[in-house]
C-alpha cells in the first residue's frame, strides 16, 4: 500500500508522526494475532509491546522492501514462538492457572480490550499444537504464503503444508464437536 511506503520512508527519516501512525494503524492486528497465538493476555501484550519497541529502535537500520503489515505480523509470530518455547521450558504454570485471554473487566494496567468472540477463538485455537495454530492463523488470517511461513519457522514448505492440513482437520473436529454439543 502506498501509504505504508510513505510511512516507512518517513519513519526511516526519523519521523515520530510516522511511528505514531504505524502504531495506531497496526496495533490491533498485532494484538489480535498475539492473543490467538499465545492465548494469554499478558503474553500477547508483552509480545506486541516488544515488537513495537524493537521497531521504534530500528529507524536507521530497518531494511524493509516488502509489506509493512506482513513484516510486523512476522515479528509478532517470531516472538510468540519464542515465548511459547520459553513457557514450555519453564512449565511453571499449569493449564488452570494460565490467565485467560479475556478478562471481563478493564483494569488500568490492561492494554488490550477484547471481545467474547476473540476469547472463544483463542480458546479454540489453543487446542491445536502450537506449530499448527501458528500456521493456520498466519495463512488464513495474516494472508501469508506457505513459503513465507516456512521461512519464518525455519522448516520446509511441505512441513508447513502438513501442519496446515493437520491443523484444519483438528479444527474441523473441534468445531463439529462444538456444534454437536
Amino acid at each position, binding site marked *: 500500500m502506498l*501509504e505504508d511506503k510513505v510511512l516507512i520512508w518517513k519513519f526511516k527519516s526519523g519521523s515520530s508522526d510516522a511511528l505514531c501512525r504505524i502504531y495506531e494503524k497496526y496495533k490491533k492486528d498485532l494484538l489480535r494475532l498475539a492473543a490467538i497465538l499465545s492465548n494469554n493476555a499478558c503474553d500477547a501484550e508483552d509480545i506486541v509491546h516488544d515488537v513495537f519497541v524493537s521497531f*521504534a529502535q530500528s529507524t536507521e537500520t530497518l531494511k524493509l522492501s516488502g509489506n509493512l503489515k506482513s513484516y510486523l505480523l512476522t515479528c509478532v509470530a517470531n516472538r510468540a514462538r519464542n515465548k511459547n518455547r520459553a513457557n514450555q521450558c519453564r512449565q511453571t504454570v499449569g493449564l488452570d492457572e494460565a490467565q485467560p485471554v479475556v478478562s471481563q473487566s478493564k483494569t488500568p494496567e490492561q492494554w488490550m480490550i477484547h471481545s467474547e468472540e476473540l476469547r472463544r477463538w483463542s480458546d479454540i485455537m489453543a487446542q491445536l499444537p502450537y506449530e499448527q495454530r501458528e500456521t493456520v492463523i498466519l495463512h488464513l488470517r495474516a494472508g501469508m504464503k506457505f513459503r513465507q511461513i516456512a521461512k519464518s519457522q525455519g522448516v520446509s514448505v511441505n512441513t508447513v503444508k502438513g501442519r496446515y492440513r493437520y491443523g484444519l482437520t483438528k479444527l474441523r473436529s473441534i468445531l463439529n464437536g462444538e456444534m454437536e454439543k
Partner: protein
Amino acid sequence: MKSAENIKKVIKNLDLEIDTNTEKDRIILSELLEAQEKSRKTNSAFAAPNIRRQIMKSPLTKIAIAAVVTIACVIGLSLWRTTGSGIALADVLARVEQVKAFRFHWNVKITGEDPNKPYSSEERGTILTSQEYGRKGKIEQLDPNGGESTSTEVYTFPDKKTKIGITPKQKKYWRVEFDDVTAERLWQMNDPRTYLKKILACKYESLGRSTIDGVEVEGFQTTDPYFFLIGGGIQIDAKVWVDVKTRLPVRYDFTWPNFDQMGTKIINRGHIVMHDFQWDVPVDAAEFEPVIPDDYTGTVVKYPAHITEETNIQGLKVLVELLGKYPDPEIIANYTNVAPTVLLSALEKSETPAAMRLKEEIKGLTDDEISNKLVDFLMPIRGLGRFCDMLAQDGKDPAYYGNTVTPKDADKVLLRWKVSDNDYRVIYGDLHAETVTPEKLAELEKALLK
C-alpha cells in the same frame, strides 16, 4: 458438519473485535517515541537512512534535495542575526534576491573511501540563471578512467514547467513536462538563494574573515543534520563565503558522507563546490533557446499540468482501458522512476482492445519511438503518484488499493485521502467519488480486508 472449506472461510472472515486502553496507548507511544529518539541519537554518527542513499546516487539530485527548501522554516526565525563581524546572512539573501541574472561554476565529486578500490566520479558545469528567461546549464560528466567526457545542456523553464536536456555526443534529447508544484521546486534547484535560505533556517556560525582569489570574504558554516530536508541526520558540512564588500556569495562548499546498505560504514564522500559567481550579468533571450538538430532523437516525459482529483480519475480511466485493471501500488509509489518498460511489461498481459491496438502500433518501432508512444499512458501513473506524494507530505493520509480493487468494484475504496478532520474523499473502483466520514471509511476499508 463444517467442511474444511467452511472452516477456512470462517477463520478468514472472523470479526475478532479488539480495542485498546487509551491511557496505556499513550504510555506505550511515549515509550516508543523515546526509544526512537534514543536510537537516532545513538546511530546518527554512523547510520543514514536508505532513502538518502538512494537520493544521493545522483549528483543532480543532491542539489535537488538541498533545494527542496521549506521557506516557511525560515519564517518566524530571527533572520537578521549578525555574527559579530558585521555581515548578516539575511542581508546577503536580500541582496541576492534582487539580482536579475547570475552565472556560476559548480563541481560535484564523489570520492571512494576504500584505498584498495579507488573510485571517483565527477561532474562540473556552468549554470546561468535569469529571472526572466529561465535557467541554462552545461554539465560535463567526467570519465573516472580518463576517457571521453559526456556533456549535456540542460534548460529549465519555470513558466512553461519544462526541462530539456540535450546530449550532443549521443545525438539525443529529452524533455520533461512537469506539474506546477514540481516545476516550482525544480526552479529552486541549483539556486544559491535556496542554499542561503536553508543555512538561515539551520543553526549556523561565522567562520570569520578570509581571502578567496584576492577577495576578502566572511565564511558561514552549518553542520545541522537537517540542512538536507529529506533524510535528516546526514552529516553535512555546508559553508558559504560572502564578499564583505558586495555582501554577495563568492563560494559554497558542501561535503557529506555516503554510507553502505547497512548504514554503518562510509563508502564514499560527496563534495559540491559552487564558485566563480558573476552577479547581475547581462543576458540575451536567445541564450535560453535550446537548439535541437533535426537528426537528434528524443524522449518526452509528461506529468499532468495540474494534478487534481479529476485528472486522476481521467488518468485511471485511460489506464483501465489499456491494462484492464488498475496499476499496482508499487508502480504508483515509484512513479518518479517509472519507465516505459514497466508499462510494456503490464501491456504484455493485457488483451483489452486498447492494448491490442497499441501493441500493433508499436511493432517495429525503435526504443525511443516506443517511449514516446507510451508518454500519454505513463503520464497518469506519474500524476497519481505525485498526487499521493503531495497528499502524504501534507499529512492527508492517502491510501491506494489498486492491487485489490477492480473497475467493477463500485463500493470498494480505490483511493482515499483526508480532506478535513471529519471527512475523507474516496474514489471508488468504478471511479465515482464521494466524501465520507472517517467511520464510514473504516467500514469501507474493513470490507476491503474481507
